[in-house]
């Protein structure tokens, strides 16, 4: 990327955009809704990476609907947010999917949930179930969080299965999703996907009177059973950025340490699952045995094996003392040794290499077009790591390598995660060594209304993006874009041409987290029963 941030902003203005807000790390540019794709094309061709888009019901603020398209300028470490407005009685925007295919899902999502129509593209229901009534949009402000709309009818009979179904319940999927694989012999020729079975209404709940700014981190942490801390941290980073809250350095270090602990247990979990899918159960058991050390460490540091609950606005609730430092360093030393032995043996098993290499290939160009993130992107030759590109928390204080492979196959994704475990161990050691003194949270803070911010974190599965518009006592709009959301559409390209036997491994190779991806409503399609979660029940 040869252009500077100023060049890009200037060009956007020359094209007809209006700079609404210019911050150190992001710029908000209002653009005409009928020319969105021109702006998107310009940004995409300038090397920007598409992050997500968000539909917002802003009628209480300006009597309009708004969509935000968030692009990241990785090499500059800055975000460009395009904002287009649409009136209530004519709620549409120009689709950008012809220029940026990665915007496919998020456009369908704001169509389903906010009722803003993306024009000049094929549309279908993505998030809402088939029998959800027409004209009822859950993320509009008049829709109460506990409202139960009347059940409609199925639009059409569900298609009879013609391929090999994988899901909604399948041993290879640990959460309900549905892939229909079309095969010739044992070779997959096409894939149909149907997801969003387990929506829980988390974004809506955060905007409801049941939640306040202080409670949302605990809700956010329940988005995912593996990388929950990523979500609570990312929410808080967005909120703190919007409100201008300066988090104490020690708290930033503690958050970073816990984030890396989370990456370690997540990658070890995945490695075990991958070994199991390859029929190498010894690898599965030993990966999880080693992982147990990390879980014990997490409990020692935070009080919980998972869902730590230590994140608060402006810092953390638990400090790290000398005993914890000692325990962490000893765990890292033994972990490195045991992990090294495990991977050495695992990668020498003939079936692991022969089945993982050359299968589930995602080319670099496809990876770029679909804006895949995390190990999936790095295994396809895309040098993207939010910790490097947009240094946040204490990552600017540590030195580490970003593993990069160009093969784009299942083995490359496996190797990226193996390398990342070593890097995480070194990062934790460095953070512990450099842990500064001082307080672990701010004493006081204020959250002004109507502020916007984007935050991103490199989760174990890739870039996690949170967007927030502050409201009174709680977010006016909170959008979560989990990494799996961006990686699932790439599965179609990865599965085509792959042997059927390798489909579970290929699906697993993106380390899918369907809970992260599905966030909206629990709806029983047969009985028509709808339920919302209670904070006491967890997510």
């Amino acid at each position, binding site marked *: 990327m040869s252009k500077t941030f100023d060049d890009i902003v200037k060009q956007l203005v020359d094209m007809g955009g209006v700079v609404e807000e210019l911050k150190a790390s992001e710029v908000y540019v209002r653009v005409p809704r009928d020319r969105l794709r021109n702006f998107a094309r310009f940004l995409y061709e300038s090397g920007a990476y598409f992050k997500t888009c968000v539909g917002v019901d802003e009628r209480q603020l300006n009597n309009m609907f708004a969509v935000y398209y968030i692009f990241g300028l990785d090499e500059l470490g800055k975000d460009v947010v395009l904002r287009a407005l649409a009136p209530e009685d004519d709620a549409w925007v120009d689709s950008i999917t012809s220029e940026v295919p990665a915007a496919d899902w998020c456009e369908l999502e704001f169509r389903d949930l906010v009722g803003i129509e993306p024009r000049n593209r094929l549309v279908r229901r993505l998030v809402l179930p088939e029998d959800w009534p027409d004209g009822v949009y859950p993320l509009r402000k008049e829709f109460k969080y506990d409202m139960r709309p009347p059940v409609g009818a199925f639009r059409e009979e569900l298609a009879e299965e013609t391929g*090999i*179904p994988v899901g909604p319940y*399948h*041993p*290879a999927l640990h959460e309900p999703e549905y892939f229909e694989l079309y095969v010739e012999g*044992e070779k997959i020729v096409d894939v149909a996907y149907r997801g969003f079975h387990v929506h829980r209404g988390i974004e809506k709940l955060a905007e409801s009177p049941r939640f306040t700014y202080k409670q949302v981190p605990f809700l956010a942490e329940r988005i995912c059973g593996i990388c929950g801390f990523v979500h609570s941290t990312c929410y808080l980073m967005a909120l703190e950025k919007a409100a201008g809250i300066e988090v104490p350095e020690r708290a930033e270090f503690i958050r970073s340490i816990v984030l890396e602990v989370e990456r370690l247990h997540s990658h070890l979990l995945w490695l075990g699952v991958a*070994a*199991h*899918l*390859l*029929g*190498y*159960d*010894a*690898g599965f*058991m*030993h990966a999880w*045995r080693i992982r147990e050390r990390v879980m014990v460490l997490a409990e020692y540091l935070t009080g919980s094996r998972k869902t730590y609950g230590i994140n608060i606005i402006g810092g953390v609730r638990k400090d790290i003392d000398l005993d914890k430092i000692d325990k962490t360093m000893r765990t890292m030393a033994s972990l490195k040794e045991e992990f090294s032995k495990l991977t050495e043996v695992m990668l020498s*098993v*003939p*079936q*692991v290499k*022969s*089945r993982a290499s050359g299968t589930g290939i995602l080319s670099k160009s496809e990876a770029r077009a679909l804006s895949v993130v995390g190990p999936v992107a790095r295994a396809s030759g895309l040098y993207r790591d939010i910790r490097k590109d947009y240094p946040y928390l204490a990552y600017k204080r540590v030195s580490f390598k970003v593993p990069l492979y160009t093969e784009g196959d299942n083995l490359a994704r496996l190797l990226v995660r193996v390398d990342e475990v070593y890097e995480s161990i070194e990062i934790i050691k460095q953070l512990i060594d450099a842990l500064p003194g001082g307080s672990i949270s701010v004493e006081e803070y204020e959250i002004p209304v109507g502020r916007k911010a984007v935050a991103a974190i490199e989760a174990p599965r890739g870039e996690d993006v949170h967007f927030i518009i502050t409201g009174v006592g709680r977010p006016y709009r909170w959008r979560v874009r989990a990494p799996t959301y961006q990686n699932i559409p790439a599965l179609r390209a990865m599965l085509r041409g792959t*042997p*059927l*036997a*390798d*489909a*579970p491994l290929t699906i697993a190779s993106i380390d899918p987290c369907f809970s992260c991806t599905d966030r909206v409503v629990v709806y029983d399609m047969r009985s028509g029963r709808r339920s919302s979660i209670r904070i006491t029940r967890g997510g």
Partner: protein
Amino acid sequence: MFHSVVAALVSLVLAPIYDGIERKMRAAVHSRIGPPILQTWYDIIKLFTKEIVVPLGGTWCALATVLELIVLASSAVLLMFVAGIGLSPEGIFWVIVFTVLVSAASSLTILRSVSQNNVYSVVGGFREFSLVLSAEPFLIMSLFLLASGAGSQISRAVAVATAIVASYVVSGRVPYDIAEAEPELSAGVNIELSGPLLGLATVSTVFKKFVSASLTSLVLVSLAGLSGWSSLAATFLLTPATWIAQLILSVMLGRSRVDLAVKFLYTLLFTLSILTLLSYGLGL
């Protein structure tokens, strides 16, 4: 004859215990505690107390499941009978009958799979078919050559190697458990089975392992030139050791893919067979 029948019946009772020992040892390798040694028996007993659910394949599936068990039990008994004679020209008729029974059991597994109205089962059945074609012809050939009594020690050793590899495939262990492949096909050939029918299939799986281990033991014993009562005793005693050796190999490997497995087996077994035939032909 009497000794062989007694050995066979004792073996059939012991086979689920061998399987229990396998599970316990596998757990030890995994750093797990594992189930009790009698767990396989507990599983079988529990499955037989459940209600009968006719699978989607209906009569054909149930019939194939029952027949498969009968044929496998018969082949296990017959194998002990062959062991009582030794792999020699005197027992060649029974070797022929044994190979027919092993092939019949494989065919019934395939029939059971494809008769179920389930895509996973059908895919599993075709995988089983590919494996059978890749291994059993070579197994039959090597057994005939060994039973013929012809050839030198070297040529017999090559035939024994062929039989050992092929009989390992028959055991259905990793990497050749691709017809079931739980994470891929949700148990594949067994997906529609439950209750007593699954119990029958479980017993069949255990007997298959037994046939594989005792066949491997028998061909090793034949290499030592034993026959008669000593051959039977050696085969009977060597079987658990062979079973454990097969287990250890399976723990160290991952599951193969059907195309890779077929390619590997054809390459290996075809090469071994050529070597066997050459050594027999050249009188080495």
